[in-house]
């Protein structure tokens, strides 16, 4: 008896060790690209180019922080790209929030003709690959005069970058779910008190659903930060940060400057990581929920 108890205890401990080893192994796998990015971005051009195989750690005295980051920062006008990206994100996110709040309210709270059919039609568009929309949107944006290969003004570029993203079926669906969870009694009580729908939406529903709204703001802004294809199509002269990444980081002789390239990659990745670290709760909840609801 004593022996079997000891045996199960040992097995439990062994199992724990196994589980943690497995988790640590994959955690390392996940972290490696970040580590490699940071490490390379700190090495000098010379060190990266001459060390074969490369060293996996870096001595304090070998760190070339300023050199790489300053040159990466200057290789492309990142300051401009970032400001523009933030502005585009702010405009499209604000637009998305207002349009989805209104529409989600209508679908969750109001009764109107063809409501269920319309909602089903909207949901169905989520199954359609975005590429199908991009083709015509490119034509539309050109027809509206917001983009021409011959040139565009800053305002036109902003219109082209933001207008197609001022609303979102996915976020509308997501927000409607949050609105639906608010008990009807609250609405009836507000009605008895003579509260208008407009006031009820802004004073009751929006505050209650604010965690969901925050999630939408974060995910939408992060999406703009990582946008690559659309800006490349319709704002050739006004790139966003991610477009700047693929600009050549080559030296005079056409050799790729990897430390500079990795520094640039980190400059673009870091804001995302910082936002994630501070607002983890909202992002993770939003994602796991979107997976369940589908």
């Amino acid at each position, binding site marked *: 008896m004593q022996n079997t108890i000891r045996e199960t205890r040992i097995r439990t401990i062994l199992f724990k060790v196994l589980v943690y080893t497995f988790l640590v192994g994959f955690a390392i796998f996940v972290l490696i690209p970040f580590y490699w990015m940071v490490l390379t971005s700190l090495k000098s051009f010379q060190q990266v180019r001459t060390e074969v195989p490369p060293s996996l750690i870096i001595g304090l005295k070998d760190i070339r922080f300023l050199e790489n980051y300053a040159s990466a920062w200057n290789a492309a006008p990142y300051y401009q790209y970032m400001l523009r990206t933030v502005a585009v994100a702010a405009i499209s996110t604000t637009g998305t929030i207002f349009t989805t709040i209104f529409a989600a309210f209508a679908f969750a709270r109001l009764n109107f003709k063809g409501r269920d059919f319309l909602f089903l039609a909207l949901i169905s568009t989520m199954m359609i690959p975005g590429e199908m929309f991009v083709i015509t*949107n490119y034509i539309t944006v050109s027809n509206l005069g917001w983009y021409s290969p011959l040139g565009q003004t800053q305002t036109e570029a902003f219109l082209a970058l933001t207008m197609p993203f001022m609303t979102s079926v996915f976020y509308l669906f997501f927000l409607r779910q949050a609105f639906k969870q608010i008990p009807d009694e609250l609405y009836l009580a507000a009605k008895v008190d003579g509260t208008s729908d407009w006031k009820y939406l802004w004073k009751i529903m929006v505050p209650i659903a604010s965690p969901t709204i925050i999630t939408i703001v974060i995910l939408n802004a992060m999406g703009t930060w990582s946008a690559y294809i659309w800006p490349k199509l319709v704002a050739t002269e006004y790139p966003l940060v991610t477009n700047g990444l693929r600009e050549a980081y080559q030296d005079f002789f056409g050799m790729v400057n990897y430390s500079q390239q990795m520094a640039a990659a980190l400059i673009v990745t870091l804001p995302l990581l910082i936002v994630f670290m501070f607002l983890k709760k909202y992002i993770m909840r939003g994602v796991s929920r979107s997976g369940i609801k589908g």
Partner: protein
Amino acid sequence: MLERQNNLKALFYLAPAMVLLSVFTFYPLFNAFFLAFLRDYEFLLRSAKGFTLFGNFKNVITDPDFGIAMKNTSIITFISVPISVIIALLISVALNSVKKLQGAFQTIFFLPYVTNAIAIGMAFAFIFHADYGLLNTILGWFGINPINWVGLNASWSNAMFALLVYTIWGGLAFKIMVFLSGLQSIDKQYYDAARVDATPRRRVLTKITIPLLSPMIFYITVTSFIGAFKAYRTIIGMFGETLRPPGTLSKDSLITIVGLVYDALAHADATGKMSEAAAASIILFSITMIFTLVQMQISKRRVHF
């Protein structure tokens, strides 16, 4: 409980979203079908010479790139998704069974979700660099000579391997999150009963956890198939706009179906190219639609325990 019908009020609330969606979502959907059937559409002149039923589809399919794109897209989809689903499942089960450091692990595993596909693609390309890369350094410890993964004249299979590793890496976060929240919603009673019966861990996993999670596993697998079928940004991140290692021929390209759409769109000024982009996007849509229909059918019938 809802108030009585009020169409005018609803219209007021719906208008902003509906106007935008009509212009940028509904109209493009119909227009894609319209474009795909135009004969010799000139984008610059906005004019076409009548209609053609299969002309543009034929142009897309007979292009040698189409076969290459289909092959690449299928390989990316049917290799990376099963592997990442299995790994994600194991990680989330492991994660769910530990108490210490669970939050820290969860944060780490979620990181790939919030990063930039292009930036991380560049980091991966450098991990796979023949001379300065991390992978060959590690392989060197075991006496393996440097392999040309993604460099000048790298072979298709090496480049594809590198891309698959990156794709699996990128796909883990979302799946782990969803599985973990699924695991946490499983009724604890099942596990208590298993403990009373002293059921071995392996049996708990195969007889309780996986069957109860099966609807979610199935759902995630199919949606991941659809997502992986739309692969494009990962390839740009690793290989740039050429979508292949430098120096290689177009037959060794890692182009995908989405790549075909954007390639055609990039040459939209040429005769008929806009229509070919539309045709390629409809082909993409049809394939993803098949996945969706299969999913709807099966989840209607089976999987529920």
